[in-house]
């Protein structure tokens, strides 16, 4: 019982092995044919140049990571091509074109962000003052509406006198977006 099975098995294995071999051979010759055409028609990229570039790149990386080589001057304490050194934070001072204040170059961006009313912190500040104004309005009168633009609040403003007036001023300043 085992003998015929074994035979079948081995002949199956042999057959499939043969088929696989043929398919593989066929594929290999297909690829060879493609490459032959590419090479004969001169369509292949200049492989020499490519290999050269790869080699240069590999050598470059090796040289750079070699600790024995004088390392490329890193960090901010180097002398530039003009023979100058510069502080880590740029210290040139100029006028902000938005508000006119004198600002140090290295701190210009954060200043401008607040100055122009952009950015998270500036927006938070605006909402803080506006909610403050609103809470003051609502505290002032039980019938006051939420919107500061409605007539009821203006009535409130008048009725509450100075405090609310100041609050509404703050509110309008906060929402002013400079462009």
């Amino acid at each position, binding site marked *: 019982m085992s003998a015929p099975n074994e035979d079948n098995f081995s002949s199956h294995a042999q057959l499939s092995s043969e088929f696989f071999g043929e398919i593989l051979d066929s594929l290999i010759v297909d690829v060879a044919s493609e490459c032959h055409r590419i090479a004969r028609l001169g369509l292949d990229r200049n492989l020499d140049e490519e290999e050269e570039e*790869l080699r240069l790149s590999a050598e470059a990386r090796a040289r750079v990571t070699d600790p024995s080589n004088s390392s490329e001057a890193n960090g901010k304490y180097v002398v530039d091509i003009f023979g100058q050194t510069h502080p880590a934070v740029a210290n040139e001072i100029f006028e902000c074109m938005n508000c006119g204040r004198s600002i140090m170059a290295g*701190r210009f961006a954060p200043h401008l962000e607040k100055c122009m009313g952009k950015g998270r912190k500036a927006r938070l500040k605006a909402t803080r003052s506006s909610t403050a104004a609103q809470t003051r309005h609502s505290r002032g009168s039980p019938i006051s509406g939420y919107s500061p633009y409605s007539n009821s609040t203006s009535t409130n403003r008048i009725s509450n006198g100075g405090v609310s007036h100041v609050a509404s001023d703050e509110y309008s300043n906060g929402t002013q977006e400079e462009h």
Partner: protein
Amino acid sequence: MAPSNHWDTTSSPCNHLADYKLKRGVNCYSMIQQYVRTNPYGRARIEESQTEVARCSFCCGLQGRLYMCLICSSVSCCLTPESNHAVLHSQSFRGHEIAVDLEMAELYCCLCSDQVYDPDFDKAIMWKHVMGLTRTENGELRMKHSKRKRLSFGLDLDLKSVKRLFSFGDQKSKSYLPLGLRGLNNLGNTCFMNSVLQALFHAPPLRDYFLSDRHNREMCQKRLSDQLCLACDIDAVFSAVFSGDQTPYSPAQFLYSWWQHSENLASYAQQDAHEFFISMLDRIHEKEEKANHVLRDYGDCQCIAHRSFSGLLRSDVTCTSCGYISSTYDPCIDISLDLDTSTPYLTEVGRTSKSSETTGTSTLLGCLDLFTRPEKLGPDQKLYCENCKEKQDALKQMSIKKLPLVLCLHIKRFEHSAIKRLSRKIDRHLQFPFSLDMKPYLSSSVLKKRFGNRIFSFEGDESEATTEFEVFAVVSHSGMLESGHYVTYLCLRNRWFKCDDAWITEVDEDIVRSSQCYLIYYVQKVLCHKGSEEVSCQPISPRADSFVPIAGC
């Protein structure tokens, strides 16, 4: 050395094939043509019968390579060099020397024992492809193009009006520094901006445009009418950087102006250099376009940003069922490439290999190959085929229809992990060449390759000559996705300079090669001058008459 893009005349049809053609005349391939079968993927094969498998007429065998004789169309096999029935056939029948390989539809000369090539044969095969797709009245290859009209570019840039700049005097002296090198102060997390600006200062078309005063601040219409004009501010920065002043410049006015134009990006935070680059080009385009008062199709725009950076990408979607190709063209101002992580190129140049994360190197050519590789669209992405009138599986392939003057390659160094739901930066090293030939990625080459590199000229072959590029700027990044530092390397007159905010230093090529590139700027070779070398003034192509030699002075 003969240009590699032409039909190499040194390997013209062998004598035997030439003889055959002479004898048979024009219809020498008409007989074999009837047996050519093409598949939607672009390959051709020879099939005598659709119901029976081909067998060798000598041994009735199925094994080995099968060849069909061109003259009598009998099939012979070639198992081994010793058992070659194809050759036997050619010996038995005089004159039956040329055969065709069934699998690949390639000519085989039994006397030369080699595969041979003939443009007429390839043309015959290609016509079969043409017929196999969709037929029109005059048998033209009908491929659907999107309604975006075909644009003819060519070197029509008005480089003629560019003044000869840069008299350098004795440029052979190493101590002489190229113009246009000036540090840019970091105004607070603005290295992303500084790095891109440094690259753009030395993009030849852009540099020449601003330095030859093509945008005059005094006469700018927008300025005069009290409107914002980013180009004016860019002009100011160019003037400052090329003024010869060596103290670092603070591009504060520019930052202010840019923030007013791009509100969504206006914040004190570390940002992406690529995003800034796109934003800046967008703003230049907007303002210029309005100034010209002409409504232009996006791809035709003549603003300096587009004239410098705009190229055209082609996307082909092939129906795998019938082979119908649907092509669309889209303009682009840069190309974003995924990192080719498939085949790690192990670099063992005498150094002990360190941690496993850096054992693989990607190459720029590998990334470009990946970009132009045919991609099988997934089963959930079936597209409607106009020929089959139903949804079918499709293949998509990108290629470059028209190359820009300045090519910006953006390396996508981030990956998103859907599982962890976060993005990660890929620090893998990318090898990039200093000289880049973009020919293999052009639509003509890609299309040609798809059809087996047959010698056949496709519709609208692009001008061949302007495919060579030279690198002039590399923006590199170090650090993490959320925070890091950008530095630009500039190649001026064959010397490399590192621009790290306010610090300009000269560096060795090695540093540049081993840096972690993020944006690589290449310019067409014809537009760049290299040190004391004479700029070669070879004619680009017969078509580009407007070529102006920018001689190195």
